[in-house]
C-alpha cells in the first residue's frame, strides 16, 4: 500500500510528519500547478467546487508516481466536502486510476468505524500509542507551520524585497520539514524569529505603520496559495500587514481532534461573534468567516478580503451577510471569487485598487470611508 493525500497549502508538512513517524510508504503529490488543475478540471464535474478539481489532479499525479491509496477527511455535510471521497473514488475509477480512497471520518459519531479505518491505514505493526503520538507530533508541526506563516506575515511589509521574505520562508519551511523531534521544531522556529529580528533591526526599517488587512473565507482557498493567487503574499509585498481567519492547526484542532485541541488560532470565539448575524451553522466555514470579519473589525483592521471558490455554498451565505457586517462595523470588505479561470494579474489589480482605497480612507480619515464602503462591497 502506497499512500497519498491531497494538498492544502502547507498541510503536507504535517501529514508527511504523521506518515513518516508511522513508517508508512507514501508519496507527496507534486505541488499544485497548472497541470494539476488541468487534469482535475478535465475529470471533475464542471460545476463542482474548485478544491475537488485540485484533489483529483493531486491523486492522478500521485498515482503516476505509484500511489494506490489516498487519504482524505470527510464529514456528514452539509458542505460538499463531505462527499469528496465518494466522488473522487468514482471519478478516478472511471478515468482509469482505481485508487482506493480512505475517508477518515467518524460517520454518525461511530468512533469504532474511524478507528477501523485508521488501523487499515497504519497497518498492524503500529500500536495505538504510537499512532496517537504520531498524531500529536503532526499537530505540533501544523502549529509550527502556522507560526512560520504568521511570522512571515509580520515581516513581509518591512522586507527590503519580496525575494528576501520568500527566501526566509522557504528556508524556514525546509528546516521544519527536516525536523523530526520537538527540539527540531523549536529550533526551526527560533531560527526564523532570530533572522527576522536581526533583519528588522538592521534594515532601513520604515517608521510608517502598514495597513492592516485580514484574509478570511473558505479554508482551502485561503490556505492554498496556488488557488488564492498568493493573495497573502501579494498583499504583504504591497506593504500590508496580513492576518488570516483560519490557520491549519485551528482546523486540525476543531475537526480532527474534535475541539480538544485549540490550534494556533482557535475557531471557537468566531461562533459567538457570528451569532447575531448567523444564528445557526450552515456547513463549511461560513460562521468562521462572519465571526472573523467581526473579530478583525473590532481589532481595528483597515480592510478585509474574503476568498471563496466559485459556487461554494457556505461561503455564498457568508457573502450575503458580510455587507451587513461591513455596514455595522464600518470596515471595507471585498469578496474575491476564484475558479480555474482566475488570472493572477486580475487579482493583483483588484488588490492594488483595494489597498489604494484603504490608504486614501486612512489618510483622509473617516470622511471618505463611506465612499470606500460603497465601492468595496456590494
Amino acid at each position: 500500500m502506497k499512500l497519498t493525500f491531497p494538498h492544502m497549502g502547507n498541510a503536507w508538512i504535517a501529514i508527511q510528519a504523521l506518515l513518516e513517524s508511522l513508517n508508512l510508504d507514501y508519496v507527496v503529490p507534486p505541488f499544485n500547478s497548472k497541470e494539476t488543475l488541468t487534469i482535475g478540471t478535465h475529470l471533475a464535474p464542471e460545476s463542482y467546487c474548485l478544491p475537488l478539481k485540485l484533489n483529483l489532479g493531486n491523486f492522478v499525479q500521485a498515482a503516476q508516481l505509484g500511489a494506490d491509496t489516498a487519504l482524505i477527511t470527510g464529514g456528514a455535510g452539509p458542505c460538499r466536502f463531505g462527499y469528496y471521497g465518494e466522488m473522487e473514488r468514482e471519478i478516478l475509477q472511471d478515468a482509469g486510476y482505481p485508487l482506493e480512497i480512505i475517508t477518515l471520518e467518524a460517520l454518525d459519531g461511530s468512533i469504532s468505524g474511524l478507528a477501523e479505518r485508521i488501523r487499515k491505514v497504519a497497518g498492524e505493526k503500529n500500536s495505538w500509542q504510537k499512532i496517537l503520538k504520531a498524531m500529536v507530533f503532526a499537530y505540533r508541526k501544523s502549529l509550527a507551520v502556522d507560526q512560520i506563516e504568521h511570522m512571515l506575515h509580520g515581516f513581509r511589509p518591512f522586507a527590503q524585497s519580496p525575494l528576501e521574505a520568500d527566501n526566509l520562508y522557504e528556508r524556514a519551511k525546509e528546516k521544519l520539514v527536516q525536523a523530526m523531534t520537538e527540539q527540531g521544531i523549536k529550533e526551526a522556529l527560533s531560527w526564523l524569529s532570530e533572522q527576522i529580528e536581526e533583519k528588522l533591526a538592521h534594515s532601513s526599517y520604515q517608521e510608517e505603520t502598514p495597513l492592516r488587512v485580514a484574509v478570511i473565507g473558505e479554508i482551502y482557498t485561503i490556505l492554498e496559495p496556488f488557488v488564492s493567487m498568493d493573495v497573502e503574499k501579494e498583499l504583504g509585498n504591497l506593504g500590508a500587514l496580513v492576518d488570516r481567519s483560519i490557520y491549519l492547526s485551528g482546523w486540525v484542532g476543531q475537526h480532527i481532534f474534535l475541539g480538544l485541541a485549540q490550534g494556533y488560532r482557535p475557531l471557537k470565539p468566531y461562533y459567538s461573534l457570528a451569532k447575531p448575524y448567523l444564528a445557526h451553522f450552515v456547513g463549511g466555514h461560513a460562521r468562521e468567516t462572519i465571526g472573523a470579519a467581526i473579530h478583525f473589525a473590532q481589532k481595528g483592521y483597515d480592510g478585509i478580503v474574503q476568498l471563496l471558490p466559485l459556487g461554494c455554498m457556505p461561503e455564498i451565505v457568508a457573502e450575503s451577510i458580510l455587507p451587513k457586517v461591513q455596514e455595522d462595523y464600518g470596515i471595507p470588505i471585498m469578496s474575491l471569487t476564484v475558479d480555474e479561470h482566475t488570472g493572477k494579474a486580475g487579482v493583483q489589480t483588484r488588490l492594488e485598487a483595494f489597498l489604494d482605497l484603504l490608504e486614501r480612507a486612512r489618510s483622509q480619515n473617516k470622511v471618505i470611508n463611506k465612499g470606500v464602503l460603497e465601492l468595496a462591497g456590494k
Partner: protein
Amino acid sequence: MRLGFPRALMYYDYYPFWAGFFYKLGIQLVLSPATNREIMNRGLKLAPDDTCLPIKILVGHLTALKDVDGIFLPRLISMEEKTYLCPKVLGIPESVLFAIPPEIKVYTVDINWRAGKRKALQSLMAFGVQIGCSKSQIRESFVEAQRWMRAYQRMRNASWSFEESMERFQALMEPGKFDSLGFSQIKEPPKTESLNEERDYRPKIALVGHSYLTYEAYANLNLLHKLKEKAQVYLVENVPSPAIEKEQDKLRKRIFWSHAKKVYGAGAVYIQDAEIDGLIYLSCFGCGTDSMTNDLLARRARKAEKPYLVLTIDEHTGEAGLVTRLEAFLDMLERKNSHEAHFSSYGQRLDSDSGLA
C-alpha cells in the same frame, strides 16, 4: 394575523406543512404571486451574483409580499433524520434579510428533524411564544401540519400534478371548506390523461431535478408543460420513498442532503426502469448539490446506456435554445426506438479524443 410566505424554494416541498400548521392556529398565510418578470428582476438585482437561481427568485418573492403583518421564513435545517438541507437553505433567513425592509418583522423558527421529531416540536413551541400561541395549540397544529404533509405526499405519489395538489390545498385554506377536507379522496386514481392519439408515439420521460425548478414554470420556461405535450412525464415526487432509500443503501456513503438524496434516488430508479425511454436532468447554474447528483446519475446512465439530457437553466436561458434541445432529444429517442439500437449517452463523446496528459 397575516403572515407572508414566499412562493419559492421550500414552498414546493413544505408549503402544505406550514399551511396546515397556520390554518389550525387561525393565522392566515399570504402567498406571494407566481413568479413573474418583475419578481425575477428584483431578485437578480438584489441577490449576490454568484448565488443560485432559486435563491435569487426567493429574494424577488420576498420583495413582492405586501400588506402583511410579518414574513414567515423558517430555517429548515433538516426535514428528516440523518440528512440536512443545502447550506444556502440553512442560511435563510439571515442570508436574505437584506431584501426585506426593516419595518417588516420576520418570524423564523429552526426546524431540525435530524435531532428528532420532539426537537422540532420544541422549537415550534418556542416559536409559539413569539406569535402568542399556547403549547397545546402548537401541539395540535403540529399534528395537523404533519397530516397535511402526509396527504400532500400521497397526492404526489399518486401522480397528481403539483398544480392539482396545490389547488386542493388552496381551496382548503378558504374559510368554511375545512370540514370537507377530502383527504379520503386522495386514494382515488389520478385523472387519466387524455390519450386519444395513442397511435402517436409518446415516449416516457423522467424529468429529474429539484422541485423548485421543475415546478417553477416561469424560470424553467414552462418546461414541464412543454414536455407533457410531447411525452409521458415522470417526476422525482412520483417515486415512493422506500425505493429511494434502497438506492441509498447501494452507495458506500449515504447522501446527506435530503433533496439531493431524493433526486439521486429517483434518477437511479428511472435509469434502471426499462419502461423509461430517457432522462432529463433539470439543473440550475450554481446549484451545489446538483453538481454532484447530476454527475453520479450521468455515470449511471452512461453505464446503462440510457439516454440522458442535462438542461441547466439560469436567468439568461432563452426559450428557443431550450426548445431546440428538447426537440432534438425527443427526436433522438424516437429514432433510437425505430431505427437504431444505440446512441451516445450524455458526456460519452464529449472530449473523447483529448486524452489525459
